[in-house]
């Protein structure tokens, strides 16, 4: 019963789609606030424009779906779906509350890591099938970005696995103090590499809309855009749930329904920090991002593993 609730409500499908709408609205609103604007407003004035995401989704559903004739039509429509699935699958292993978990596995965190790294090849395949000049450049940048972030991400998660074990449910019970205090280096490496993975702003290199039209998403209109570009936000949802679980103590002080709410609040807090990056940083060049990933970020994530080992030795 709780498994069904987890699959269909939270952290499952309803939460994913609701998050998609809210996160896009929140991103536009936060960027607007920092730039002294209102952001989306008139669509529902009494809610501050919260229905903007819904309006955009409806617009996309009711607009023409163009499948160009020069592509492989089946792959062209199927690959955004694959990208969306690959970004949504980690949610399966992440519990939203002590027993709200879709698939309880002892090696949950390892699966999450593997699936998170698998999303990029799907995006690259998508861009390749689109066969556009801009998508091609976007695909190359996507590959290079994955080369930059995957090792720090794996190492920072490895550090947390050494600390708390690979079971995501036990990881919360094992946290006497939140992971961000126990291992701040791992949190930093996780934060930056997640920003790279979901192309948050300083690393919004693959879909830089001022350089290459929309990167891998150039050719997609209508709901294909919702599925392919929305997948970034779904990945952000997975990452923020994972971050809330590992670093902010999950549902820590509570349990049950209240615990789920606390976990969601923590995840939204992380999301807000990721989203506000859009208003703060300029975009890096691809070589700067690579140098960052293979320089200080790699060193920090390697150091975070050492910190975890020191904790383990100290605690016994």
């Amino acid at each position, binding site marked *: 019963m709780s*498994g*069904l609730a*987890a*699959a*269909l409500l939270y952290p*499952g*499908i309803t939460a*994913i*789609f609701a998050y998609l709408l809210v996160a896009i609205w929140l991103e536009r609103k936060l960027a607007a606030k920092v730039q002294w604007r209102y952001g989306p407003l008139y669509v529902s004035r009494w809610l501050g424009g919260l229905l903007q995401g819904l309006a955009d989704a409806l617009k*996309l*559903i*009711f*607009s*023409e*779906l*163009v499948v*160009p004739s*020069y592509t492989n039509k089946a792959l062209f*429509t199927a690959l*955004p*779906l694959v990208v*969306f*699935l690959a970004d949504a699958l980690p949610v*399966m292993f992440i519990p939203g509350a002590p027993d709200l978990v*879709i*698939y309880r596995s002892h*090696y949950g965190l*390892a699966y999450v890591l593997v699936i998170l790294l698998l999303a990029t090849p799907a995006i690259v395949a998508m861009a*390749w099938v689109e*066969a556009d*000049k*801009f998508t*091609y450049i976007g695909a190359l940048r996507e590959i*290079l970005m994955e080369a*930059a972030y995957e*090792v720090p991400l*794996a*190492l920072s998660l*490895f550090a947390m*696995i*050494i600390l708390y074990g*690979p079971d995501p449910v036990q990881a919360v019970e094992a946290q006497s103090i939140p992971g961000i205090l126990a291992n701040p280096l791992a949190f930093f490496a996780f934060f930056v590499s997640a920003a790279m993975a979901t192309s948050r702003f300083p690393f919004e290199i693959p879909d830089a809309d001022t350089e290459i*039209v929309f990167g891998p998403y*150039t*050719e997609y209109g*209508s*709901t294909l855009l919702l*599925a392919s570009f929305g997948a970034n936000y779904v990945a952000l949802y997975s990452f923020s749930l994972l971050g809330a679980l590992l670093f902010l103590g999950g549902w820590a002080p509570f349990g049950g329904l209240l615990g789920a709410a606390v976990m969601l609040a923590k995840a939204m807090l992380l999301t807000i920090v990721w989203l506000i990056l859009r208003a703060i940083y300029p975009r890096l060049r*691809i*070589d700067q991002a*690579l*140098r960052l990933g*293979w*320089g200080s970020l*790699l*060193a920090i*994530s*390697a150091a975070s*593993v050492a910190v975890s*080992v020191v904790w383990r030795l100290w605690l016994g």
Partner: protein
Amino acid sequence: MAWLIFLLALTASLIALLMAPRLLAPRRLTRAKEVRFEAGNPPYGKARRRMVMQYLGYVYLAMATESIVGASIALYLIDAKVLWAALVAVAAAAATAYVAARGHD
């Protein structure tokens, strides 16, 4: 069973999402929509051209390092006693990658 429900429901909702415009939206195909988008120009030339090789070293580096790190994590998960060997492997891989990436520019 919950995971199966999750997967099926997610796939079904996505397929419904992709089918919706086909049923609901007006359709009028023109030649301009059939060809690829090139920022307002009619397309010319090949889309896939020679790749920039400049940063390919990083991709090789990522493949090499990733395999060592991944294998270490997997071995550690299988048997927690190999933690020290895994740590040495990860440290060596990270240090090598760090030094190699320094020399890449």
